[in-house]
């Protein structure tokens, strides 16, 4: 099973994966998020899933602020 790091790597070359994610967002709960990633071959730890769920609205938000 791959990790979130692998997911980040994969979307750089597989834009279809990103589009699939966009279609299923937002997830109703953390479990649904974990199941989707697992179905796609990526295992998320509980903390990672919770972090992603908390920020899921930002994943595709082009207005998401940066803090350099």
């Amino acid at each position, binding site marked *: 099973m791959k990790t*979130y*790091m692998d997911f980040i790597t994969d979307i750089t070359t597989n834009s279809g994966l990103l589009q699939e994610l966009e279609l299923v967002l937002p997830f109703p709960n953390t479990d649904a998020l974990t199941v989707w990633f697992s179905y796609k071959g990526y295992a998320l730890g509980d903390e990672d899933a919770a972090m992603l769920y908390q*920020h899921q609205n930002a*994943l595709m938000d082009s207005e*998401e602020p940066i*803090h*350099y």
Partner: protein
Amino acid sequence: MCYAPVSQPLTDSAIAPLKLQAYQQINFGKIALTPQQQESLAGLNRQLIPFCQSLPPALQTGAIFAIQQYFTGFQLGNLQQFFNKFYAPSWTLLGWMGSEAISAAELEQAIHLQGMAYFLHMLDDHLADGQIPISHLMLQLRTQAWMRFIQGAEQLVLSESCQESLIYGWINRYFSGMQGAEPVDSLAAYCDRFRQQLSTTLVLPMILADRTGYNADDVQEAYEAFCIAWRLLDDLRDCQEDALAGELSGIYYLLPLEQRQAWLDCQGLEPAAAQWQQLSECLEFSGVLPAAIREILAWLAIAQAAAERANLPGYAGELRQLAGPLVELLEMES
């Protein structure tokens, strides 16, 4: 290297000065990258994820999350375009210095290391000011970035005997600026301090100057003056945030002495506070805002002249493009 005060002294503002908001939204002109520069930028952006993968497996996913949490936000595209947010002259200088004396692979490595220098600069700032909590993950991320930067720079220096002058001397200058031996009490001192603080990002330009024969003093002046202009622009855009946070930015040092207390009175307050309203009126009517623009343009002019002396006309052209919107704003003000 000394501060060169070239802007006009503060004068009474025009009858109807532009609002502070117009200055907070001002930005450098956009530079149209050449296809080769676009490829370099793509390479810069591509290095971040492999860098995180070079950490122990237990830290890799956490590192990605940390970069998202503290820098890029969670928008996935931001993570893939990490270095797009930097003004291009921060790294294009290296490409303009390419010559037969350095291989394409070495030049690419130099540009990647410049990205690492900027990543370290940001990371150090936020770790030191407490915005990023210390953790084993962040310590290792910083250590790994530092090792990659130093080892890569050492590989690009031709002779071990030159490492002191081309790498470690600049690193010492960086830490001298961070530890702050000299008190800052003026814009001149503020800019001189910043020259020290940007020194790690000067390592690669200096190594390339040594390798390619470009005049090191002129390259240094072009790069440093650009960076000071960038810093002052950031200060202008962030003046509200800085005043409320109690940060003494370049805008504070541009205020007349008798008006600086208004800035200090804002520390810890909210934007709705009367003290901020008072300061913003002071900024709008004292002539400080156009003075800041003139200061930024003066530094860009210094950078451009140094780039031309260094026989880097392409870099000088980029610096000229940066100035465009600022010149237009000043024209509106007058």
